[in-house]
Every structure is written in structure tokens, then in C-alpha cells.
């Protein structure tokens, strides 16, 4: 069962029609099977309704924990342009995740400043990816 493995935190950025970006953050040596990868995506996608509900109920961008699955928490953050950041993480520290999302948001806003990147499209930038990995290492 997936709970036997220590799963890696996973960030998903979701646009209006499709996922735009996905990153897994390795926290050390562990085994990861194909099953876990697909399960994580399933968990995050099925949490989207909960994200929508939470977004409706508040003006805050940070939505804290919106869903749980076994021992994993789904944290959510909605940008001013209605792009969703979802973090799947075993940790429960909401303040730490808030700080993490703030930095991800800064990196995302810098990406939006790139005239060659169109809003609400898949993110292919390697420098964005590197920035996100560095942010994850600091906070997760």
C-alpha cells in the first residue's frame, strides 16, 4: 500500500483547463513506484472541488489545508489571476507552507513578466523549475 512509502511532496499548478506544471520534491532516498506517482496526481485532481469551495469562502489567496488523503495533506493557494497551486505534503505546518506558496507566487509572477510566456499555458521554463526546486529545499 502507498502508505508504506514515504512519499515526496508534490506541487501542482493548475490553470483553467489543464495542469500547467508539476514538480516532485525529493526529501531523501526512498522508493517511488509508478503507483505512487499516479496516486498523487489523483489525490491532487480530486481535491480541485474542495479548492473551489475554499476559494469561494474567503478573499485570502492562501487556503490552507483543503483536503486530506491517508496521511497526506492537500494545501491550496489561489492567485489573483485564479491559477491554483496545490501542494501534497505529509507535514502539517500551515505557516511554513504559506511561506512556501508566497515564494512560489513570486516566481510565478516573474514568469508572467516574460513576454514569451502566455498566461494559463503549460510552463516549460527550466529556470522556473530550478527556482521552485530551490524554494522547496528551503521550506519543505
Amino acid at each position: 500500500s502507498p502508505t508504506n512509502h514515504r512519499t515526496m511532496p508534490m506541487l501542482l499548478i493548475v490553470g483553467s483547463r489543464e495542469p500547467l506544471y508539476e514538480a516532485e520534491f525529493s526529501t531523501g532516498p526512498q522508493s517511488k513506484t509508478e503507483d505512487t506517482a499516479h496516486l498523487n496526481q489523483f489525490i491532487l485532481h480530486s481535491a480541485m472541488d474542495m479548492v473551489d469551495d475554499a476559494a469561494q469562502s474567503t478573499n485570502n489567496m492562501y487556503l490552507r489545508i483543503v483536503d486530506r488523503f491517508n496521511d497526506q495533506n492537500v494545501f491550496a493557494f489561489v492567485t489573483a489571476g485564479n491559477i491554483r497551486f496545490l501542494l501534497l505534503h505529509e507535514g502539517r505546518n500551515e505557516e511554513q507552507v504559506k511561506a512556501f506558496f508566497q515564494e512560489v507566487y513570486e516566481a510565478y509572477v516573474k514568469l508572467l513578466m516574460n513576454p514569451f510566456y502566455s498566461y494559463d499555458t503549460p510552463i516549460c521554463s527550466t529556470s522556473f523549475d530550478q527556482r521552485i526546486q530551490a524554494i522547496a529545499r528551503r521550506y519543505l
Partner: protein
Amino acid sequence: SKQRSMSSASSNANARLGEQIWQKMPKMNAEFFTLTYGSLVVQLVKDLEDVQKVNEQLEKMGHSIGMRLVDEFLAKSGVTNCSDFAETADVIAKVAFKMFLGVAVDVTSWNAEKTACSLLLYDNPLADYVELPVNVDLYYSNILCGVIRGALEMVQLRVEAYFVRDTLRGDDVNEIRLELKERIKDEMAEEYRRE
């Protein structure tokens, strides 16, 4: 023989002049400027498809800007005739780039005849936050080369200006090569003299 390169005293004077005028220039929001130029380039890329045509179009637009910008430059800076091309290059680097873009530019790599040099831009506000798509042979800031060419044309100098290094293309600095091709003879002046 005549001193051909700028003494550091004259260059410092130019740098001070550039700084003074920059302080007095009306300013605009830097991000809005960057975004505007970015939209322009991206629109050209979409419209023209061929990236070489985009490079040419940016240079042409710059040329048209330079032809008009030189009047404002001369009026605000009070710079009069440069004694040689080395002084021209120094004025472009220390006064013009400073007052219009707020950036410090160095002049280096002179050839033996003192007709060609490099302008090094460490900072380029046009290119902030920009990441070029992969495998695209675009000179994103080519408008700057056109501005230089257009401005100098109005003071009777025919030059070529082109990027040899560009931070957006992976280099560590932006380098514009500036080459003096010909001093344009003033045709009208000749006719008046004959009469």
C-alpha cells in the same frame, strides 16, 4: 601624434554629465516599459514568423527612433562636435545610454584604426524577466542597434551596430559592436559654397 582614445578625465566628465541629465529626465514605470517592449517583440514574432525579419524590423524601428532622438539628446546634453570617433563612442556610452535608459555602458575593444569598438551593457532594462524560447535566433534588443545607427546618421556618420554578445542568448554580458563606415559628406553645404 594626436591622442586618439578618451582620457579618463574627459570620460568621467561625460559620465557626470550623463548622470546629471538622467536625474532631470521624466521617468516612467520600469516594468510598464519592459512589458510594452516585450509585447511589441512578441507581436512581431507572431506577425513575421521569420525571426531574421523580426531582427531587421526591430533595427529599422530603432533607426526611425534614433533619427528623432538625437535632437532631444543634443538639446538636453549640450554636447557639440566630437573631435573623433572615440569621443563619439564615449558620449553615446556615458551620456546617451545613461540619460535615456539609466544604464552605465563601457567602451572597449578598439581596433587599430580607432574606427570600431564595443559597447558593453551590463544592465538592459528592455530584457528584464525575459526568457527567449529555445532555438530562436532572435536579437531581442536589436532596436538599440537601430537607435545608434539612426542617431549617428543625423550627425553625418554612417555606422553599423550589431550585437555580438547577448545575455538573453546565454552570454555573460551584452556587447554591441559599433563600426564607423563613412563620414557622410554634407551635400547641401557643398552647393552653398559653390554659389
